[in-house]
């Protein structure tokens, strides 16, 4: 019996090992800060190991089921970085809300492990396994706030819809499996389709529809977006931070692998589907967000519209477009992270900062947080010189370069509508007087510094995006 090459999966193995350690330590130690420390240590360790296993070439292992290419390395590093920041932002919140810190971080790490598997999967079933690992961990994270009706409800909703979407995805995969003559490996699916020639098997198309539906469920494109607002609203802010920022990158890489890596020959078909879904998402995401008074819910709908932009990048079917997509999703993750981070830091002593009312007069009580939140909002609205502008600009340029001027104009008008609810947040923070006393957020120095760096990064990358763009291009190639 030959053993698989374990070198490329060292970070994942380390993480799995550390999860066990954390669970054990949590069971026997009283001090919760040890668990937080161990989690941070795990993430740093994974980051370092990931750099260590990167040889610059594509490595495969486990019978080609696991791939470690530039795309995987890069997005994994970004995800570890994001997770590290997430942990810093939410650690006080967890203690404050009496969410079980040990279990939370163990499940949190499981979710990240799931993302890592998704990012590196080269086989449809492994993709599926990664997705399920992520999803189940997220259901658990939301439900962890046992006494909250809202959290339980949203966990239940997420679980039922998520399970349904997984089922649909699996159903689609089974059709592709049959249509290509029994292949699950993405490269073999591609080869089978190449042999087939220009005619795409109708069975495969049938499967494709289901696969696309399953995939975009995770991104949250309309009409598969129903779970997003409820889950965002119902879950505690700490979990919102995880879902709102971390999971997007893995989902995009997942789609790149599946649609570009495996089904690129059916690109004409799926790009039309995605175009349609993207237009719907831009429309409904932005319009419905206007009616929201809950910031979490509003951010949920705003995610839907942003993912519409991301999907438009796929539609272009060019390296340029994919680079834009990756750039968009990475920068969006950091923007959303800062946004959720600020809300998390403002929630204290059982108070959950989640409605627009709660943000009233924030510029008086917390001028710095208000300023940061304003930058986040303007970035999401796509106002230069913040990074959101450049991300949108790249997508628009990619669209216009292939002649989709009408779509570009539509996207522009929709982001105009989007600007309204972002600047409304600024309005509440700056123009209104505070109606109630907001608890003073006493975040520690490290958290504050990290938040400042995070927000300034939005500005700096917005002004000097070149290096990040080149990095994304390098990953996509």
């Amino acid at each position, binding site marked *: 019996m030959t053993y698989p090459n374990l070198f490329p999966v060292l970070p994942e193995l380390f993480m799995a090992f550390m999860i066990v350690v954390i669970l054990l330590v949590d069971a026997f130690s009283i001090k919760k800060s040890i668990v937080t420390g161990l989690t941070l240590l795990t993430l740093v360790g994974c980051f370092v190991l990931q750099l260590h296993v990167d040889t610059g070439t594509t490595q495969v292992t486990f019978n080609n089921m696991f791939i470690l290419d530039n795309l995987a390395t890069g997005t994994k590093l970004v995800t570890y970085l994001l997770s590290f920041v997430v942990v810093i932002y939410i650690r006080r919140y967890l203690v404050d809300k009496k969410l079980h810190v040990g279990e939370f971080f163990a499940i949190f790490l499981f979710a990240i492990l799931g993302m890592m598997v998704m990012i590196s999967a080269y086989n449809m079933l492994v993709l599926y396994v990664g997705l399920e690992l992520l999803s189940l961990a997220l259901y658990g994270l939301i439900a962890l706030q046992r006494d909250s009706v809202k959290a339980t409800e949203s966990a239940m909703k997420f679980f039922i819809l998520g399970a349904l979407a997984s089922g649909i995805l699996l159903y689609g995969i089974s059709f592709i499996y049959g249509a290509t003559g029994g292949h699950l490996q993405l490269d073999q699916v591609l080869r089978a389709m190449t042999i087939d020639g220009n005619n795409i098997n109708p069975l495969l198309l049938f499967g494709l529809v289901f696969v696309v539906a399953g995939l975009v469920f995770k991104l949250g494109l309309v009409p598969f977006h129903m779970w997003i607002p409820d889950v965002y609203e119902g879950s505690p802010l700490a979990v919102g931070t995880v879902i709102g920022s971390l999971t997007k990158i893995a989902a995009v890489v997942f789609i790149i692998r599946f649609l570009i890596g495996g089904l690129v020959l059916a690109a004409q078909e799926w790009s039309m589907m995605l175009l349609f879904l993207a237009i719907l998402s831009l429309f409904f995401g932005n319009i419905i967000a206007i009616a929201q008074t809950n910031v979490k819910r509003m951010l949920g709908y705003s995610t839907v519209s942003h993912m519409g932009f991301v999907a438009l990048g796929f539609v272009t079917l060019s390296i340029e477009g994919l680079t834009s997509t990756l750039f968009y999703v990475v920068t969006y993750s950091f923007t959303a992270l800062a946004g959720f981070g600020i809300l998390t830091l403002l929630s204290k002593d059982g108070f959950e900062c989640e409605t627009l009312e709660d943000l009233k007069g924030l*510029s008086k009580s917390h*001028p710095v947080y208000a300023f940061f939140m304003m930058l986040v909002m303007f970035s999401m609205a796509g106002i*230069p010189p913040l990074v959101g502008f450049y991300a949108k600009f790249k997508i628009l*340029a990619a669209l216009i370069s292939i002649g989709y001027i009408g779509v*570009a*104009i539509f996207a*522009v008008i929709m982001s105009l509508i989007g600007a309204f609810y972002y600047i409304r947040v600024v309005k509440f923070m*700056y123009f209104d007087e505070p109606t109630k006393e907001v608890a003073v957020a006493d975040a520690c120095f490290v958290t504050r510094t990290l938040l400042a760096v995070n927000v300034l990064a939005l500005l700096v990358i917005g002004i000097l995006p070149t290096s990040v763009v080149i990095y994304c291009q390098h990953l996509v190639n």
Partner: protein
Amino acid sequence: MMNYLLSLTIWTPIVFGLITLVVFPKNDCMARYVSLLGSVIALIFSVVMFHYFDPHQAAMQFEEVAPWIPSFNINYHLGVDGISMPFVLLNNFITVLVILAGFKVIKHKVALYNAMFLMMTGFISGSFCALDAILFYVFFEAMLIPMYLIIGVWGSTNRVYAAVKFFLYTLVGSLLMLVGLIYLFFKSNGSFEILSYYNLPLAIGPQILLFIAFFLSFAVKVPMWPLHTWLPDAHPEAPTGGSMVLAAITLKIGGYGFLRFILPIVPDASRHLAGLMVVLSLIAIVYIGLVALVQKDMKKLVAYSSISHMGFVTLGCFLFANGTLNVWAVEGAITQMISHGFVSAAMFFCIGVMYDRVHSRNISDYGGVVNKMPVFAAFFMLFAMANSGLPGTSGFVGEFMVILGAVQTSFIAAFFAGFTLILGAGYTLWMYKRVVFGNVTNSHVAEMDDVSSREFIILAILAIAVIVMGVYPNLFVAKMHTSVEVLIKQVAYSKL
């Protein structure tokens, strides 16, 4: 230093604004003086630029080029010609006065207030100097953030509505312009240089679409009828300084956009649609002038008069005769913009002076101000005369030049444009009469005291500017002449 003069002009106020915001968030006194220092330094840089500007050279001057985003061939490319240079100077000049005007009046969030104005000055100078379309766009859009806050935070009762309306109106146009710019990027084989678009052949269809995209962006800024409705809402709600900047400078970016983008990039579409533009401008001049007559709110009145005056700018930009623009009209349009910069800033400042004492903008709350504030009344008289276009003041020069140009191309247009001299005198002087003359009507007016030395300085500086510009307009016109000639040649040439 000369090589980086434009960068210094743009970035000095922005850096000082950041310093004010970060270092003196609580220290109001320091915040005021540091920002005044910043605006004065920026003004000095722009005066140096004005002095060393060579009026006989047609090419861009003080150019700076550095790669910015190489993947899209976007450069940090700055430069000024005779058309943009006066605006940079005007902008920095007005900002010094605006900072001074807010010295005693603004009492809460002082650092933020001053920082926002300084940053906005930098962004505005940047949009006038930018020769790269994306650089222009970034400055152009970034302006929205400070202006949104200025109206929303320091405005009066209906400020939120006004701020949101201002933001969304301006964003509509500029986003469509972005699409137009990206289209031009691909048409010109990957260039965002504005000047490279000037010689780019374009069919009439795309030209018309580009015209619409640019038009929506700049016509909202100018603002042209019927896209003007944000202005009468934004002005009364903005603080004095905000109104001054809004009227004196941000509107000018619209006019500048017509000259820098629309006319040279889509000349054939401009010729096609010139009739429509002239009609819209005349509607602005006559109809909005009539609307101004019936206003009860002084700031609204001046806001409508701004729209009416800016009608001359757009009129001057589209007076074609045999496919060629009229030199008088174009130079008149630019002169009108600069003059309006001084006059409208002065008018809004005067209203601000009275508002600080009585806290009302309604004409009916005043009467007999001259009895209590004789010095102020004298200054106000001068500015009111300038606003109605009295010869000898700056208000006359631009309008006269445009009407002169109009007579040469279309008598009907000139005839209707001439109405402004009656209407302008009507609404301005009638308001002046009701506010200033007569007996003291109520106790608020009775308690008014005359201008402080700070206010006197601001009024005096503006008065000098208005008179100098009115008596010797050549100071500016001579500097812009070569560039205008080049522009007219550019527009005369067909791209089809």
